[in-house]
């Protein structure tokens, strides 16, 4: 079974632990996003606005997750 590590930032820490693991059938970023929405439906709106990155590179919804990929979930920037 595939295991994916997830790290979230900023406002997402109000909805999830900062780091956790997802085991099971998620095979793409799009599926991971759905899984996260299922885990906490109140985070759905924020998740829709988020960017995802693997190995410090942005990835799109169709990106195929590999074993032990660490996915970071990045809410809209608010620096500066």
């Amino acid at each position, binding site marked *: 079974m595939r295991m994916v590590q997830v790290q979230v*930032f*900023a*406002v997402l820490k*109000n909805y999830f632990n900062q780091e956790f693991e997802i085991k099971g059938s998620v095979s793409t970023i799009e599926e991971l996003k759905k899984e996260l929405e299922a885990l906490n439906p109140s985070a759905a709106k*924020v998740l829709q*606005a988020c*960017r995802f*990155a693997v190995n*410090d590179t942005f990835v799109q919804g169709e990106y195929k997750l590999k074993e032990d990929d660490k996915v*970071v979930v*990045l*809410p*809209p*920037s*608010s*620096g*500066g």
Partner: protein
Amino acid sequence: MIKLWSSPLPAAVDLPVIVQEPIPVIELFALAHHPRAGGIVLFSGEIRNHNAGKEVAYLEYEAYTSMAEKMIREITAAAKEKWDLHVALCVHRIGRLEICESAVVVITAHAHRSEAYEANQYIINRVKHEVPIWKNEFYTDGSSQWGGNCNCH
């Protein structure tokens, strides 16, 4: 003093771009003088005591540091090439910041001033909109709010 322009490749890539401590604005400005530059523009994004109608007590900034550093370096390098800048620097602070402290400083130097202004705005706009850095505003009423809108534009 280190001179950014004395080395064949800009030493800017070695400067830290994400810092925990107060941004050394004065030292950065001192680095930015260049004998071919007629105009230097420095932008300092500072903590306001109010936002969206609420009184701000302080802010905390968080970054996904590894990507934020890489992206800030890419943005300043892109500006440097696009406008043929002599100097392009950006430093962003994270952690707790008080009112009037600098959260971000951008410095650009060009032979002519209009390019220095334009490039400076390009850098801060991209940094604010693209780089994974977030502010958490703590208000004097005890509440707090993660930023998700660009409040300072």
